[in-house]
């Protein structure tokens, strides 16, 4: 059916999908479809009611729903952009056929000239970290609890322990305190916090919530309902130190132990995946290993700032549109970007260099916290006052520098 042929089909209507749609529209795509499985677009932002979003992208401080609203304002009332909610994508095929289902239209077969994958990520659960003990009610992921408290109107419990100091866990520590709950402790297995420093200050210190670094949970207690947990200190190899155990009383345990890019569709497509980001390998245009299939946002690598998600999705949207209506242009060389000393991951993983020349922004994560970092004798170097694994680093690589590369570059980070 011809009416089901789109220039760009976008899987996921969160901040990445909406930003990609707007960018595809701005760059000339005439028929854009966004498929969203939830009852409304906006993705996870709708439950992130706290503020602090948008300072980079929209130049104003917004709440999560506020940021989502700005994204939706950009795409609404445009005949070129169609958004289908309550729609689950079941399969994406390499010939750019998308199989989706929704309660009104039933099973749909949609064809895109290009596709952008913006499925985001989901939370690691208790099963993913194997906590021993009973299996009582009252163990939730922090994000599930966030949805309950901020959207559905339920409190998951009254006396809370949070495992993991990721941002969602910290934000939930404050949120539960504001709702009159007692947050007993936040436990973090790493010797450093995995959340933004500002969240340690405004979510934990403000509410006198203790943060136990180098600690984990060795036991969940309770038959029908959580009654408490046993915590223990870990050594520098993250092994439990015998004798360091102590009990904390609680009726609820929230887990904020990491996010996993949601890549079932990418795997179905047999996209080349990166073992550390757990997302598809992409070039600077966010094109995956399958031509015409792009990916952006948390599905590529987990971000700490939604502003960077939007930025990345705009790149994907732009080049998906250009590919759909024409061509990006022949590449002259493919440059691989290898994470070197100190760097855990870098996106994009490679640069498809073309004659046009363009500045490429690299998004990196360091392995461990560092101070006063830079490079030295290098192609290109940037100094930073601090570097933390929880905070993504972005560096612009100018076009004239990319021209000097032959084959591979390494990105390294050193304390100077």
């Amino acid at each position: 059916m011809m009416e089901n042929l789109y220039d760009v089909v976008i899987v996921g209507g969160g901040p990445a999908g909406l930003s990609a749609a707007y960018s595809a529209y701005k760059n000339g795509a005439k028929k854009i479809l966004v498929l969203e499985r939830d009852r409304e677009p906006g993705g996870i932002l709708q439950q992130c009611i706290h503020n602090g979003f948008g300072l980079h992208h929209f130049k104003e401080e917004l709440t999560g729903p506020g940021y989502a609203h700005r994204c939706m304002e950009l795409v609404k009332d445009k005949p070129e952009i169609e958004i289908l909610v309550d729609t689950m994508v079941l399969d994406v095929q390499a010939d750019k056929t998308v199989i989706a289902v929704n309660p009104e239209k039933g099973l749909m077969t949609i064809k895109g000239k290009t596709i952008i994958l913006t499925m985001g990520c989901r939370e690691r659960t208790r099963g993913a970290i194997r906590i021993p003990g009973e299996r009582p009610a009252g163990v939730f992921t922090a994000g599930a609890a966030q949805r309950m408290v901020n959207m559905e109107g339920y409190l998951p419990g009254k006396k809370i322990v949070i495992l993991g100091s990721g941002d969602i866990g910290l934000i939930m520590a404050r949120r539960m305190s504001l709702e009159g709950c007692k947050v007993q402790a936040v436990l973090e297995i790493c010797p450093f916090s995995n959340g933004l420093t500002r969240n340690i200050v405004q979510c934990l210190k403000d509410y006198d919530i203790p943060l136990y670094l180098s600690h984990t949970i060795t036991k969940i207690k309770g038959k029908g309902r959580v009654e408490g947990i046993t915590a223990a200190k870990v050594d520098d190899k993250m092994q439990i130190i015998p004798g360091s155990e102590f009990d904390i009383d609680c009726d609820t345990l929230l887990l904020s132990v990491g996010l996993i890019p949601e890549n079932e569709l990418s795997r179905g497509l047999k996209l080349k995946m990166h073992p550390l980001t757990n997302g598809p390998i992409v070039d600077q245009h966010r094109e995956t290993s399958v031509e015409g299939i792009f990916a952006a946002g948390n599905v590529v690598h987990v971000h700490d700032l939604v502003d960077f998600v939007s930025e990345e999705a705009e790149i994907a949207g732009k080049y998906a549109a250009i590919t759909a209506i024409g061509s990006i242009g022949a590449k002259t060389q493919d440059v691989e970007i290898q994470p070197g000393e100190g760097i855990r991951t870098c996106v994009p993983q490679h640069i498809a260099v073309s004659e046009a020349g363009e500045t490429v922004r690299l998004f990196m994560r360091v392995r461990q916290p560092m101070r006063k970092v830079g490079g030295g004798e290098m192609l290109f170097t940037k100094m930073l006052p601090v570097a933390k694994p929880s905070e993504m680093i972005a560096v612009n690589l100018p076009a004239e520098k990319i021209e000097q590369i032959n084959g591979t570059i390494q990105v390294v980070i050193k304390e100077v």
Partner: protein
Amino acid sequence: MAVEKKVLTCITCPIGCEITAELTDGVITSVVGNSCPRGEKYTREELTAPRRMLTSTVRLEGGRMSLLPVVSEKTLPKEKILSCAEALRSVRVKAPIKEGTVICENILGLGVNIIASRDMERV
């Protein structure tokens, strides 16, 4: 003359600058480490009268969800945050609501309005 150093993390934006303030006899004499003017403003405020934004929810009737997210228009005194959050727990509103609508005017007489964070259609 008592000179005192205080190190704090700016919470104005996600960069989270580590700022060192020097106080002489309790008066701030220098602020270093901030990468923008908001960092200095934050430091001065934090050391004298700390303020915070408040985000929470209020009960909603007639909408697709049972809650409406709300945000303070400006920062509130930090020590009043918990009592403001408590005050919001008894507030009830009806859909439809537009983003920015005042949900609670001049909360606890602190001169700050609480406004809706999003639109909520009537269903």
